């Protein structure tokens, strides 16, 4: 897999303040790359530099093998940005909005019409061509915003907090369209401070704090930084018949503790042994009431590494 985007030693200073600090990373083709970090960690600054809205203080950004500082036009036609703050014109129709932005990227004539219709269709606004965004809900505005960014079919789509302040339904719709875009061959950079979203859709994740990448990898790799075990708590009706030894023989199980109405098992995180454990408990005639798996999530990873919450 080749790198769609490569960032080398990227630095952005605002006076004395260093917003992005010597950041290096590579986004491979076909990835949904997540940028996870608290507000003010430097995510948007990085995005703005990639989309040439901000000039970097140091370092280089290479898109599809070309340095964007030297080939700005090439970069712009291959990147689609869905900015954090809505960038649509309220008094132009949905169709005009998308057509306007696609026109900026150089589409003309029949192709422009075709792609505009296609983009609106894609975000589920196919029946709203003539409607004005001022009458749209927050989620619809977001979707229109996405349509504006994808009409010119960029290789790389950057979504900066696209789900802030919208209803759950629109949120799901957006997450699904991110997956669909990815299936269609787009590489996506997705920034968010919602850990659940990033964990749900991203194939690789960089945790950013104070302008630096402090950890990078798949969500499994990130979780493995903290621990390679998980706790499985199984609530049962009566613990009298439970035998500890057979449970310990199950692959991956490190320790077993039986308490009142509860079996607590500590197991290797990567081994999928819940089935075997439950089968064994059923053989012991345990009446299972609840099963709870306590594995670390990305929030815990962030908290453990930085000592702070994502949403402070």
């Amino acid at each position, binding site marked *: 897999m080749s790198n769609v985007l490569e960032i080398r030693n990227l630095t952005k200073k605002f006076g004395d*303040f260093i917003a992005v600090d010597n950041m290096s990373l590579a986004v491979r083709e076909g990835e949904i790359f997540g940028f996870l970090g608290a507000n003010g960690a430097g995510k948007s600054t990085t995005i703005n530099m990639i989309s040439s809205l901000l000039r970097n203080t140091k370092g280089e950004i290479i898109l599809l093998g070309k340095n964007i500082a030297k080939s700005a036009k090439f970069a712009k036609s291959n990147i689609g940005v869905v900015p954090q703050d809505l960038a649509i014109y309220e008094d132009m129709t949905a169709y005009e909005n998308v057509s306007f932005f696609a026109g900026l990227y150089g589409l003309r004539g029949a192709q422009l019409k075709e792609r505009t219709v296609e983009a609106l269709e894609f975000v589920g606004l196919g029946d709203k061509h003539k409607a004005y965004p001022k009458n749209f809900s927050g989620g619809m505005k977001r979707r229109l915003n996405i349509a504006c960014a994808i009409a010119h079919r960029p290789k790389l789509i950057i979504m900066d907090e696209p789900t802030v302040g919208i209803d759950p339904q629109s949120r799901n719709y957006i997450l699904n369209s991110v997956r669909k875009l990815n299936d269609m061959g787009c590489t996506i950079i997705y920034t968010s401070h919602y850990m659940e979203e990033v964990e749900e859709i991203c194939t690789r994740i960089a945790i950013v704090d104070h302008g*630096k990448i*402090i950890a990078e990898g798949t969500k499994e790799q990130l979780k493995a930084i903290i621990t*390679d075990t998980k706790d499985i708590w199984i609530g049962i009706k009566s613990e009298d018949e439970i035998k500890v030894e057979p449970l310990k023989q199950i692959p991956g199980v490190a320790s077993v503790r039986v308490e009142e109405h509860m079996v607590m098992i500590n197991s290797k995180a990567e081994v999928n042994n819940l089935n075997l454990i439950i089968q064994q408990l059923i053989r012991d005639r345990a009446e299972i009431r609840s099963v709870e798996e306590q594995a670390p999530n990305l929030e815990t990873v962030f908290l*453990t*590494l930085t*000592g*702070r919450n994502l949403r402070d």
Partner: protein
Amino acid sequence: MDFWTIGNKAGLLFYVIAVTFFGDSAYSPWLTLAYLGYLILNMTIAIFKRKHPKQVFILLSAACTVFCAIRLDPLFTLLLPVNIYEFVALHAKRRRYALAIMAFPAFFVPPETLPIYVLTTFLSFLLYAGNRVHMDRLKAYEEERESLRENIQRLTRSLNENNEYIRQSEYTIKLEERNRLSQRIHDEVGHAMAGALIQMEASKRLLVSDSDKASELLQNAISISKEGLERIRLTLKNLKPRSEELGINRLRLFVDELSAKHAIDAKLTYDGDLDVITPIQWKIIQQNATEAATNTLKYGQATEINFEVTVLNTVIKAVVADNGRGASKVVKGIGIVGMEERAATAGGTVIVDGTRGFSVTTLLPYGSRA
């Protein structure tokens, strides 16, 4: 500075002479005398180093120009501003009034020379003011250079001294260690070996006459030797420090000292399997902790400082956090950059956060056991 003044005067004098020469005013030998007189007086100014003789001659020269201007040629007034500036410039504090004082004679100058007088005054003043600014800057640079040079010298000296000290203490420590080792081997093993030797000698003599006794003695010798061997093993094992203890103990020592010497409550906590931390990583942790603690003491206004070393699954985390005033925007100084560089040598990163007190987190990766 003097050269510029002389050059300026020469230029002005030349102008005055040229105007008289090409102009239509009557030639008079008195004029030549006046030029020469002015020349002599002004050359004399430059000869003296002290302030007062300089002032006397400057005044004389000024008086001369005024006299000549009134009696011979009004153009002589052009030479006046330079003398006035010279006089004023000797008093550093009055320098800013120089232009006003230089412009003052303009009231007495005949109207036809007035424009050229004002022009000369203005240009001379600009020349000197500009010159002064550059001279001051040069002087400042010179001073800075001097102090930097002294600094370098001082640091080089202390570096040399430290190197020498390190060399010496290394040597002393080696000697001490060798002494200690030989002492222990002598005390614990030497005696046992000597005993075994005697018994073996005895058994050799008894081998023919009393084989039972001999075998008994030999058995004794064997067990003594065995014990001796075990002792050697133990001695060597006890002498070898466990690297993990070195690291955490050093850090604890540092934390205790911090508590004792400064008005700050310092605590150390650790968690996880410290054995995985290599000596190099301990060094980085220790140095970063020292640096962070120094920063806290200097700027933090904190009453508490917490040190924490945690070994996670693939990362070692070392945190120094205080409860001081922190910093809403962290500006990276040499200290923080140094910590980052140290961490980077081991593939790690440093997070500096000033939102709740000040905290420095060093993250170092290590090869997971899994």
